[in-house]
């Protein structure tokens, strides 16, 4: 019956996610067609759940010379990881800079297995990210009130409004000025990271926010920053602040 109640709560949270906030902010979910929304709502239909299952298996898998696993330190993810994805990117005291969830997981894994995880969307890193993010499904995005994040977040805000690429477009041009209108037949969403990592129909695969931002830059014919460049985290910080209070839908489905 506990599982039933939890499922019902998650469903209620998802239904709540579908309603626009009084300030007019709407999740990308609302800009999708009915059948794509149905694909996200139902865990039996959502291809992102394949990666969540993979992450669940990876969570308990022993790695490295001493055979530690995520579960060895963190126990059951349902308890220990609840709310974690909702407050990333966060400041990493050891590295003295902000990191996103993927980097946090990679850093942790590297302690267990020094040669693990190269940049990019490698399958296991993505699966773990999906599994951890899934534990925050239905929770509001809650950027930490950490003053150490402010300089990077401000740089992210400026990047969001900066014209880029051969098309000379800023993120805000499409996702604020023209949000809700159509580009090439497709509705332009408001660019809130409410469901990452997402199963993007265009990719026919799961992918991170960084991957999505890269394709945005390619879209305006700008050269994307290198994988793991600070600009991505700065943008992610700003986007998370901009979406504060909106509910997480991870793993979401998006066109």
């Amino acid at each position, binding site marked *: 019956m506990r599982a039933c109640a939890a499922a019902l709560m998650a469903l209620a949270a998802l239904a709540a996610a579908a309603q626009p906030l009084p300030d007019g902010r709407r999740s990308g979910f609302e800009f999708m067609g009915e059948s794509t929304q149905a694909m996200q709502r139902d*865990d*039996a*239909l959502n*291809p992102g*759940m*394949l990666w969540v*299952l*993979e992450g669940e298996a990876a969570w308990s898998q022993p790695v490295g010379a001493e055979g530690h696993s995520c579960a060895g330190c963190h126990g059951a993810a349902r308890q220990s990881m609840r709310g974690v994805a909702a407050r990333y990117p966060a400041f990493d005291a050891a590295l003295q800079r902000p990191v996103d969830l993927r980097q946090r997981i990679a850093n942790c894994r590297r302690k267990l297995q020094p040669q693990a995880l190269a940049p990019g969307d490698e399958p296991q890193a993505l699966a773990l990210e999906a599994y951890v993010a899934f534990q925050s499904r239905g929770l509001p995005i809650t950027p930490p009130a950490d003053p150490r994040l402010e300089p990077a977040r401000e740089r992210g805000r400026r990047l969001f409004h900066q014209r880029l690429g051969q098309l000379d477009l800023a993120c805000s041009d499409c996702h604020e000025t023209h949000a809700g209108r159509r580009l090439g037949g497709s509705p332009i969403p408001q660019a809130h990271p409410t469901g990452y990592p997402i199963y993007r129909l265009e990719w*026919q*695969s799961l992918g991170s926010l960084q991957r999505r931002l890269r394709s945005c830059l390619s879209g305006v014919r700008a050269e994307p920053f290198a994988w793991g460049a600070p600009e991505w985290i700065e943008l992610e910080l700003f986007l998370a602040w901009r979406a504060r209070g909106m509910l997480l839908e991870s793993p979401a489905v998006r066109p």
Partner: protein
Amino acid sequence: MARTLITAPSSARRGEAITLRVLLQHPMESGFRVGADGRLLARDIVRRFSCSYNGERVVAVELFPAVAANPYLEFSALALDSGTLDFVWEGDHGFQHREQRTISVT
């Protein structure tokens, strides 16, 4: 080891129609896409799927490249007796994956 997500009831009433939903993690590379180097990416798809219930056929499906990646199938079976549901996927490059689920019918 391909990942699957199978939604099948663990129990049913005799004579009930049950809904079976299967999702398989597979790229379903169509064979029509061109890679970053300009060369055609070789076809790699699941070609056949079948489901049996205590050895009797429920469905046999032939899939073509037009089926989307991470193929999803939803169909209906008649619950007549308790036993085993068998799911088999086969495809290019010797791909084969089997799953089983048990069902109790009263």
